[in-house]
């Protein structure tokens, strides 16, 4: 984006806030996301898909004292915007009265925003042909890795750049730009008429931070090949090792359970647990909006509050929730700069970069400590209930026999209860990689029910 275009969008955001106040709003805020995206998919060596996008959205939140309403539009014409302001104000006046509703207090904005470097022009300045070539190399590495790799869903390269603007009636007006790019491949393999697939993806803010495309393709192929010849299991209770992706999936449920949105609704098993031991002492969980080049890093959250680092769980003890200003007021706590509202979504709180601090065992050492158990590489389904803490997910992975990874297993579920699972984390690996916004190293849960289809 040009400086001129940036200034124009910031003026627009500020203008809509003033319009709302002039129309009678007690407070107002505007969130604008504007940007562009590109993606190229190569399949069987040929370009299958090219996508180019230009997107923009303006989100408005209007307060009429302790009532509020929201609106969003992709049409920035003055007529539409003034109509939107009038309709939103009318809606706010019809909403229920809730004393906790409102902008964060002015004092929350007194700290300066962090000086994060989140926008890198590298990917966007590459000619499309070079970006297509990255996708091609990624797929080719997967397809040629092994003769058993018989097909592919393609290799892809994507990049996007988003300009985020925040303005409110306390006089706050700020913006930052963030770039993202990714390489991915999905490979298929076949053995005895049964097919398997798996994928790998690398993401980074800066294209220079991506691994070579061949590494991504080979990892997709490697993950696919190890699923071949999957067998079934009988039902039993065993130790379960979660690989970093599976562990991140588990951590995602914890992020949900500590989010203000769930807590205000009393829809979390971690309600009223601050100061209590909720996990094994090996577990320390951090939310860090400031992580250098973190995929979830941001200058400020969706309420314009400067990003920060929050220790959520320290050595097993729950210390903090992730709160936007509404949840903070309701719980009598302070906001943690964790509002993650989209311009067209309802207010909610959620993580920035959310991770489990690594331990000192290698994944190999953790696996070696298990005589007989399951190594989970994929979790499927929606069988996690953060209200009751019931956990029952479809899974795929490898069987561990005498401390070694053995044959793949599928059509199984792993079940337990999140409360017990967290307390039963008996090893945490040293292999932490920031693969996504929520990430974790390998972990071991000492006991879970593994259900298999073998009678």
């Amino acid at each position, binding site marked *: 984006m040009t400086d001129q275009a940036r200034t124009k969008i910031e003026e627009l955001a500020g203008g809509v806030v003033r319009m709302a106040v002039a129309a009678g709003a007690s407070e107002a805020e505007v969130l604008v996301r504007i940007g562009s995206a590109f993606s190229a998919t190569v399949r069987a060596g*040929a*370009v*299958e*898909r*090219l*996508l*180019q*996008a*230009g*997107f*923009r959205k303006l989100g408005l939140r209007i307060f009429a004292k302790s009532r509020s*309403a*929201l609106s*969003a*539009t*992709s*049409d*920035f014409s003055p007529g539409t915007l003034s109509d*939107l302001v009038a*309709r*939103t104000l009318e*809606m706010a006046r019809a*909403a*229920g*009265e*809730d004393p906790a509703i409102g902008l964060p207090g002015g004092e929350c904005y007194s700290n300066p925003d962090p000086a994060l470097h989140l926008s890198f022009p590298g990917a966007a300045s590459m000619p*499309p042909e070079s970006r297509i070539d990255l996708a091609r190399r990624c797929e080719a590495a997967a397809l040629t890795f092994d003769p058993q790799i018989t*097909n592919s*869903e393609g290799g892809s390269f994507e990049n996007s750049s988003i300009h985020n603007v925040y303005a409110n009636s306390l006089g706050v007006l700020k913006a930052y730009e963030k770039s993202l790019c990714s390489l991915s491949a999905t490979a*298929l393999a076949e053995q005895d008429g049964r*097919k*398997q*697939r798996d994928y790998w993806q690398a993401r980074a803010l800066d294209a220079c931070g991506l691994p070579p495309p061949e590494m991504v393709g080979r990892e997709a192929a490697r993950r696919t090949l190890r*699923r071949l010849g999957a067998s079934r299991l009988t*039902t039993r209770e065993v130790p379960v090792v979660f690989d970093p992706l599976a562990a991140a999936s588990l951590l995602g449920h914890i992020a949900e359970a500590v989010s203000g949105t769930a807590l205000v609704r*009393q*829809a979390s098993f971690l309600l009223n647990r601050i100061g209590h031991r909720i996990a094994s002492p090996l577990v320390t969980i951090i939310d860090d909006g400031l992580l250098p080049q973190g995929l979830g890093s941001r200058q400020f959250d969706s309420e314009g509050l400067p990003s920060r680092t929050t220790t959520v769980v320290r050595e097993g003890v729950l210390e903090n929730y992730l709160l936007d200003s509404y949840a903070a007021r309701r719980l009598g706590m302070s906001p943690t700069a964790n509002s993650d509202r989209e311009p*067209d979504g*309802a207010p909610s709180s959620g993580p920035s970069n959310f991770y489990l601090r690594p331990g000192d065992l290698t994944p190999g050492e953790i696996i070696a400590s298990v005589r007989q158990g399951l190594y989970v590489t994929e979790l*499927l*389904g*929606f*069988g996690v*209930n953060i*209200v*009751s803490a*019931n956990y*029952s997910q*479809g899974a795929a992975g490898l069987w561990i026999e005498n401390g070694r990874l053995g044959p793949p297993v*599928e*059509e*199984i*579920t792993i*079940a337990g*209860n999140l409360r017990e699972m967290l307390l039963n984390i008996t090893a945490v690996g040293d292999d932490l990689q920031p693969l996504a916004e929520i990430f974790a190293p390998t972990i071991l849960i000492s006991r879970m*029910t593994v*259900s*298999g*289809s073998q*009678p």
Partner: protein
Amino acid sequence: MSEALSRGGDYGDIYLEHTAREFLTLEEGILKHAGRNILEGAGIRVISGEKTGYAYADGFDMAEIGAAARTAGVIAARGDSADGRIPGGSPPRGHDLYPLNRPVVEEDLAAKILLLESADRAARALDSRIAESRIVLLSEIRHVAIFNSNGALVEDTRPLSVFQVSCIAEENGDRQIGIKGGGGRSGMEFFDSMPPEHFAREAAAQALRLLEAREAPAGPMTVVLGPGWPGILLHEAVGHGLEADFNRKGLSAFSGRIGQRVASELCSVVDDGTLPGRRGSLNVDDEGCPTGRTLLIEKGILRGYMQDVLSSRLTRAPVTGNGRRESYAFIPMPRMTNTFMLPGPHDPEEIIRSVSKGLYAANFGGGQVDITSGNFVFSASEAYLIEGGRLTAPVRGATLVGSGPEILNKVSMVGNQLLLDDGVGTCGKDGQSVPVGVGTPALRVDEMTVGGTAPS
């Protein structure tokens, strides 16, 4: 369109959309979130051989749409292919499946707040153990216009709404959640036959049942699926695997299996986008083709795939009206509409009576499938043990897993009454969400793996 095809290409289309969407959430007895979004934009596609170029822009700025058209057209300049234009002519007329006289999104706010409040009262009145209730009403009206390089121009106006109640029941520190909702492509008249109190009572009753439920058993056992929403099993286990794109590319566990037995003789499965007012129905799909009724499985034999324009051309199969997209920001692909199993010969009571020990799954949460291996999973939100041919204790936390190509071969009884779901289904594929319907009569599956924590 001339900009888009200026460098060649077999086919192009432009999809214009204007959507007004409203969300209302009642929590703690008050309207807590109220919002209205106006989304509009254009998506432009150029197909050349197997290649697709796609560009979209938010808003209707002619300069931006022109630039998007040129970007999409770049795909055609990339040499090779072009095995003929997609056959021309206007598609046949679409259907007229949804009433437009009282769209929910345009109704008076006050009337809608009354609906939310009556649901809230009904939930709380049912039992003192209901600690929280949350009621959501989402509604939208979407205008689409699709213009393609064969000169066809098709328009459609699509209402859609969903009303959902979730209740949390609490007793002795145990907390359980129950969710029930319904909706469709209908107007305010929907609530005449399905009053808000109905959903509230069902959600509250489900949460209360879960308080008394025991842990689900673990291991393989006979499973009876109740009629209606459990049809999501068909959607996950076989539906996705029968989408033409996966099959054309050889990615599906069902690739190349047309004419083969994939299910027991009792199973016939259709995808039907022409049911009036249903959530998965469309007058025309998102490529402008009228929706239809596609026979997927006939008495156990695989008969057909669900097609979009690209796959139907590449595989020389007729289009089926299954080309769908989430919005102008997405490339269309083969998707399901309303997918269900046709009724069979068995009395539902008789099906339960036939099982000496097993699980009855009355309702499900979400499900997921790996279309390549065919492995699927879904979670039962309401389930009971079957002991001696009778439903006994409710159970919680039951997840069912199985293999798509095998599961329907294990169906040994099919109920004689088809029930469609209440209109809450949303299907995700490749990052795109679209509304869908599912349905099934009661089914007996001789063996499925149940993933609970209690010994079976």
